[in-house]
């Protein structure tokens, strides 16, 4: 006879940066991990391919389901089938700038999506069984009302993304209080990694500078260089997502490093790692970064400005430190080094492929 039943977790957004790290962590911890992925015309499973188990294998512990946060029947079907002990809602239209172009879709997936999951828990009578983690975000603080931001800081969202995430935050609190569901919000500040999407600023920087270093690209265009963020490593942060669901009572937590750098700082750190020296000249939209040979390798493109900027975000993770015993392990320097190293490898591969006359993939925004 079998001993203890395996714990089951369901991850929405399993193909994303956090989903992949979390799946890995939960598999290590002995969970049976279920992930929801959307149907897409191109494969987008790069980040979880190393975890993939063929459906013909027996005793699989990593299982993918087709589903979509905008399709409540698919969510109810999957949750009913899996009967998860824990749900991690990481799926979202997570790009702030894109949310200005697609506010309705953003609300449908980020706000209604979270609600649909909570409703599924309720409708299926899983209020006492299934614990729910909602990926909230430091973007809720937007135009910050105090520095640093903690759990009690009032919110001031500045993008359709942040407003949709704010709805999901409140509805998570409401369902916890009204129905007694173990549901928590992790208010995560920026968390990056080599697996970050290429359109997010950190990854955009490390990828472009690596390519510039090898002569595959000339110039990197950025938006607001003065934006300040609190950047941590995604791998550290997913551990906290799991910890939040292992407490006696559900609570909301700010997760951050408590240290802040500007986009310009990030560029400088990444360039230094690659041995590129940057000389900055000009101000505002005319600011440019030149390399040692006087080539302009960084320029500002107002296209990347947001209609409403979030200038500064800095988290105060004291509560998480105190109650979860959580501290981020990776420093800013280590994060940049790891991201640059991985992007340099990819660029070297492209260089090699190109040298032999083959086409390389050029991913563009």
């Amino acid at each position: 006879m079998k001993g203890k039943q395996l714990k089951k977790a369901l991850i929405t957004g399993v193909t994303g940066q956090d989903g992949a790290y979390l799946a890995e962590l939960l598999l290590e911890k002995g969970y049976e991990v279920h992930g929801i992925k959307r149907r897409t015309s191109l494969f987008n499973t790069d980040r979880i391919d190393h975890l993939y188990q063929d459906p013909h294998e027996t005793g699989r512990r990593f299982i993918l389901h087709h589903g979509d946060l905008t399709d409540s029947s698919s969510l109810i079907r999957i949750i009913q089938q899996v009967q998860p002990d824990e749900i991690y809602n990481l799926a979202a239209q997570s790009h702030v700038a894109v949310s200005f172009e697609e506010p309705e879709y953003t609300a449908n997936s980020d706000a209604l999506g979270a609600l649909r999951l909570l409703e599924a828990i309720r409708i299926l009578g899983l209020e006492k069984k299934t614990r729910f983690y909602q990926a909230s975000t430091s973007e809720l603080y937007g135009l910050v009302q105090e520095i640093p931001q903690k759990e009690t800081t009032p919110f001031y969202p500045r993008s359709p993304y942040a407003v949709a995430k704010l709805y999901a935050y409140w509805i998570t609190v409401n369902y916890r209080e009204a129905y007694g569901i173990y549901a928590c919000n992790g208010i995560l500040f920026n968390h990056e990694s080599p697996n970050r999407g290429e359109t997010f600023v950190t990854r955009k920087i490390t990828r472009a500078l690596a390519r510039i270093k090898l002569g595959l690209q000339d110039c990197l265009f950025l938006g607001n260089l003065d934006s300040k963020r609190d950047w941590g490593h995604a791998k550290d942060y997913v551990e906290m997502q799991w910890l939040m669901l292992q407490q006696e009572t559900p609570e909301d937590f700010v997760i951050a490093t408590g240290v802040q750098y500007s986009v310009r700082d990030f560029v400088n750190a990444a360039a230094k790692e690659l041995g590129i020296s940057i000389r900055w000249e000009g101000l505002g939209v005319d600011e440019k970064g030149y390399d040692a040979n006087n080539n302009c390798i960084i320029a500002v493109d107002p296209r990347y400005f947001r209609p409403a900027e979030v200038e500064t975000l800095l988290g105060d993770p004291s509560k998480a430190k105190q109650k979860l015993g959580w501290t981020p392990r990776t420093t800013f320097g280590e994060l940049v080094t790891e991201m640059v190293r991985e992007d340099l490898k990819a660029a070297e591969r492209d260089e090699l492929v190109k040298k032999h006359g083959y086409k390389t993939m050029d991913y563009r925004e």
Partner: protein
Amino acid sequence: MKRALITGITGQDGSFLAEWLLEKGYRVFGLARRESWYRPNSASHLAGRIEVLFGDMSEGVDIASAIQDAKPDEIYNLASQSRPGESWARAPETLQVNGLGAIRLFEAVRHNCPACRVYHASSSEMFGQAAVSPQNEQTPFNPVNPYAAAKVYAHQMAKIYRESYGLYIATGILFNHESERRPLHFLTQKVAYGAACAALGISDSLDINEMGRPIVQHGKLALGNLEIARDWGYARDFVRAMWLMLQQESAGDFVIGTGELHTLRDLCEIAYRCVDKDWRESVLSDPALVRPLESGQTLADASKARKQLEWRPTVSFEEMVKKMVSEQMVRLKNVTNHLN
């Protein structure tokens, strides 16, 4: 001639606002779902004087097409799933209509008529269990039901459209506003109805409550928590504030309320007193009607509206309750005569 488009034309506020705008010489268009327009509704008596366009806030195409047909100078977005208590059972629909409906409208304005002025109906429910009292435009939100969370969503999006695209979108954070036009499932109207039944000796009413039972059963009116207190104003006063908000130099947020707090107990007391009855003999508190999470006591600090809009309520709480009870008496007498 100025043109106005009102979403939620069939509701209490929509009908009062339409009357006000007609008086001001506007050409008034209303957006309504077919099924709500064809049923008797608050604006039925305006048929012929207003132009009704059919559509649903859940469908962006309907909204864009209504805007193209009406070519409005002003839009009043009043459409919503308007029952906070019911929003627990209808949470997704509530967000679809109250939250996403608003952004479908803002998007349509941004692309089709960016010069158009927009009034968006926010709600005091957004304050929920507010940490401070009274509440003004600066008070942080703390929504405690799906209705309130959806209203916070729309309110914040209104701000983003205003700040990011320079659209003229004013929001009215309206505290409870009632009238004889409230449908029967609203608390104040239920009380007025109960008092009228007591006066007419009706012990089992024809009309049913949200639990599917007669509103008055065995001579008793079943309510939820009697200790809740609200800032209740008169709806006709409030629609004037909506219009005023669109006549300013720039768009802003305004709290609208009377600044007076009354408990449900007070309301019952006054309503039954209007018909010389003792409410304690006819009202009971049913735990099934208590919401999963109660909102706190919200009280309006409308000083900004008083100062900038020179807006003041003109109908007192007592006058309003009296009006509502006597209107229910008339209605019930008509129905009874008709049945006899």
